[in-house]
Structure formats: C-alpha cells, structure tokens
C-alpha cells in the first residue's frame, strides 16, 4: 500500500481518534485525540487487546478473531478507568497492519467531560460538536420551559382560588354566591335563597369512600340544575351543602314545588360501581320581597335558621323562614311536611 493511508499526519487530521496496529496487534501510532484519553503514557507500544476489551461482537480473544471483525461495528471499552465505551471500525491494510478508527458514540457527553476535550480535538467534519451544542441548547431551552410551566401552574392555582366555580361539580361557589347576593340586594330586587343540605351523605362517604361521595355530589349537582329554572343559580357551598338563589319568584307555591322536586329526585337511589347510595335533603328557604333590603349576612342566617328547623324536625323537610324561628334560637318550628304543601 502507498499514499495517504500510511501518512500518520493525514489520518491524524481526518480521524484524530484512530489507531494504527501492527500485524501482531501492537499499537504503532495513536491519533492525537485518542491519545488524550490516556494522557499518562503513550498508547503506541501497547497491545491493542490489552488496552481495550471488545464487547461486541462477542468472543474476540486474539488478533485472528479481531481480523475477522473487519468492517463490522465494534463495541469497545478501555480496560482501565475511566472505562470509557467507544465505537470502532477496523480496516486492514494490505500489509496485514490494521487501522481502527474510534469514536465516542453516545458516550460523547461523558467523554468530553472526563477528558476535558475542546472543539480542536474533533475533525471539523465530525458532528460531535453539533451534537454537544444541540444537547446544551436544548437543555437550556427545556429548563426555561420548565420554569415557565412552574410559573403558569402557580398562576393557575391563584386563578382557581379567585374563580367562581366549584371544581368538583362545576356549580358556582361561595364567592359567586356572595357576588350575586350583593348585586340583588343592592338592586333591591325580590329573590329567594334555598339552602339544601344532604341527609345521610356522611354514611355514603364512610361506607363507600370518597370516590363514591364525589360521584353522589356530582349527581346531586346535576339534579339540582335540572330541577331549578335556568335563571336560578345553584351553588355548592362546600361539603354536602348547596344553595339555590332564585330571582323573580312570584309565589311561595313555586318555591315549594322546586323544593319538593329536589327532595324527590335526590331520594332516588344513586348507583356507583355496583353499589347503591341513598341520600335525601333538608331544605331551608328565605324569600326576600322586592324592596326588602336586608344585608347578605342576615339573608344567609335566615336561610340557615330555616334549614336547621328542617333538620331538627326530622329529615327530608322544607322549612320557610319565619322571624319566630330565630327568636326561638333556631329550634323546631313548623316545617312543611314532606309531600305536603
């Protein structure tokens, strides 16, 4: 053989990680970058198979095995620490000498760190630098995106806290209730507030767990929206407490009808994963007449008083507020009998 293949200076430029092996498998020359991986002593003079182990193809014990692996992708690793893994390609020269060109493959990221390599250690045509650049650029971009996501997550939590919606049921929440009541009271309009408290809900939660409880709350929410008018606002105050704000009520009869339908529908069995959940509801209602300006706290306290009267009178009842209820400290008053009214 003659020409460039034998000139170490040429190969050092084109393949700075190549090794030239003698016919007997001794390293005759090492490219400048592969030499940087073993800075203590020159690689030239050492036996190739004592320096690296061939992991694949398997079963390479001597030079004749190695020769047969010419042209095949070799998986190699240094025998001494750091045991950097390398990819290799072996090409025999005509005179039984061998050229092994090496590269880091995917271990490039550890390789450049372990050996403090610079751009100059790679051939200009080698994509290693671009790969390192890309990894570093992408990592920086990912980190920036991760920080953005964290901030967005925080903003989402803050927005949820300010939101008017109950996330479990999709109903309005207490914040929304307060806003609507303020608006109705300020406008001096007539409206009714109907507190609806589930009966036996705790038993469902205790017996079948929170998933069942959540399911019941979602079904209840749906029923309450179906049984009220589109102009009414259904609110989940928290736990198993609900409230309906009903603007523009013309008669007590309308309120009784809605209350009764809610109780009847809620008493229908609710199925959850093969189990049957049974709840009912107690209702307390306050009806504010047009021009009857009371504060929000008073309106809600009166609805509470009516609700407690229903609870105390046995469950599944609907009580209308009457000033006597509060005078008696929220104790039993004449509730509307179930099925009556």
């Amino acid at each position, binding site marked *: 053989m003659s020409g460039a293949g034998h000139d170490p200076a040429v190969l050092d430029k084109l393949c700075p990680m190549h090794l030239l092996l003698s016919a007997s498998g001794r390293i005759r020359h090492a490219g400048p970058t592969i030499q940087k991986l073993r800075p203590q002593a020159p690689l030239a003079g050492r036996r190739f198979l004592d320096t690296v182990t061939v992991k694949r193809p398997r079963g390479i014990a001597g030079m004749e095995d190695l020769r047969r692996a010419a042209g095949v992708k070799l998986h190699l690793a240094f025998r001494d620490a750091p045991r950097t893994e390398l990819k290799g390609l072996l090409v025999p020269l005509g005179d039984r000498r061998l050229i092994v060109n090496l590269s880091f493959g995917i271990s490039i*990221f*550890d*390789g*450049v*760190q*372990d050996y*403090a*390599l*610079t*751009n*100059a250690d790679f051939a200009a045509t080698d994509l290693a*630098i671009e790969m*390192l*650049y*890309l990894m*570093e*650029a*992408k990592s*920086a*971009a990912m980190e*920036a*995106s991760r920080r*953005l996501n964290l*901030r967005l997550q925080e903003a989402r939590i803050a927005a949820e806290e300010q939101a008017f919606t109950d996330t479990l049921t999709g109903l309005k929440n207490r914040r929304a209730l307060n806003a609507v009541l303020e608006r109705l009271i300020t406008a001096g309009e007539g409206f009714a507030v109907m507190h609806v408290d589930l009966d036996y809900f705790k038993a469902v939660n205790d017996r079948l767990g929170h998933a069942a409880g959540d399911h019941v709350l979602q079904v209840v929410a749906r029923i309450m929206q179906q049984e009220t008018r589109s102009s009414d606002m259904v609110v989940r105050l928290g736990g198993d407490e609900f409230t309906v704000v009903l603007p523009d009520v013309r008669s007590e009869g309308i309120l009784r009808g809605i209350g009764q339908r809610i109780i009847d529908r809620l008493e229908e069995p609710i199925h959850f994963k093969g189990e049957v959940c049974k709840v009912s509801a107690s209702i307390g209602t306050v009806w504010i007449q047009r021009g009857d300006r009371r504060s929000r706290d008073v309106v809600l306290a009166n609805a509470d008083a009516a609700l407690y009267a229903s609870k105390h009178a046995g469950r599944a009842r609907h009580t209308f507020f009457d000033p006597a209820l509060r005078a008696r400290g929220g104790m039993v008053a004449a509730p509307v009998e179930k099925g009556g009214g």
Partner: protein
Amino acid sequence: MHGLINRSIQNYFCANYGQRLWADVAARAGLDFTEFEAMLTYPDHVTPAVLEAVCAVLDRPLAEVMEDVGTFLVAQPGYEAVRRLLRFGGVSFSDFLQSLDDLPDRTRLALSELHLPPVELREDPDGQYSLICEAPLVGYGYLMMGVLRAMADDYGALVLLEHCGRSEGAEALKIILVEAEFSEGRRFELGARA
C-alpha cells in the same frame, strides 16, 4: 418577537438599574404587565416600544443601550448558556466569526420559534472583516457589536469594532482583528456544565 429577546432587554435593565425603574419602562412602553416570559412570543411592535422607553427613562442613546445589551448577553454571569453556545462556533475568534452566518440556523435548532436576523461575514481585501446584519430591529447591528466585543474578550482576541451605519434595513460592522491571541481568554471545555 420572541420573548427571549424582550426578556434579555428586561434582564439587562433590571441587573443594572433595578426593578423599580423597570416598572417605569413597562408603563411608558404601554405594557399591561411588567414581566416578559422568555418562552412566549410577543407582537413585533413591543420590542421597539420597550427599547424606546428604556432610552427615555435612562436618557441614553439607542446605540449605547443596544451595545450594552449585547455585551450583557455574553459577559453577564448567569448568562453562561449564551456564551457557551456561541463558543461552540469555533476554536478561535476568527473561526467564531466564520460561524456567524450559521447563527440563525443554529438558534432555530435550539428554539424553533426564535428567528434571528440573518448575518453575513465578508472578508475584505485588506484581510479584515465586515459583518452585514439584517436589522428589522433598528440598532441590531449595535447589539451584535456588543456580542462580538464580549466574545473577543472571551477568546482573548484584540479587536477594533466600528458601526458603519444603516442602509436598506441592514447595518454593517467593520471588524479589525488586531491580535488573535492577545490574552489568555476564558477556557471553554465542551463538557463543562453551565
């Protein structure tokens, strides 16, 4: 314009003049927020408005501000990522200059949304260089001048830089490489973790 550019201007300003004065800039620029998000995109008219507000609040010319922003991007501790990514461009400063034509493409590899204006390096008959910067943003050439000045320091090269004015939407820089290895420069190892 990509948020990274706006955010860089904000970071430069806040690092040097403080958060409180930045609120003045945001108000003067007509922003309804104070914090730019690096990974979001903003309408193109925002960046010139912010730069104009920065100049007005500081009472400094645009050219100076842009050059400072460019230097800040490379030299500011904590902005190590930019310096390192630029250093991937070449072994020496002249090598780095030759890599500038690829800068917009390299940038897009990292962030597909970030479109930097094209730049073109020309070798002049006297052996020196000109850099033609397309500058949709007025003063972009000055920003590049700040980047080059800081990168020259980083490589340890001694250079003279001159802005040759703006015409037809492009700004030209004259780069005179006085001495390639004037000082040690800063080390750059491929594997260092920024």
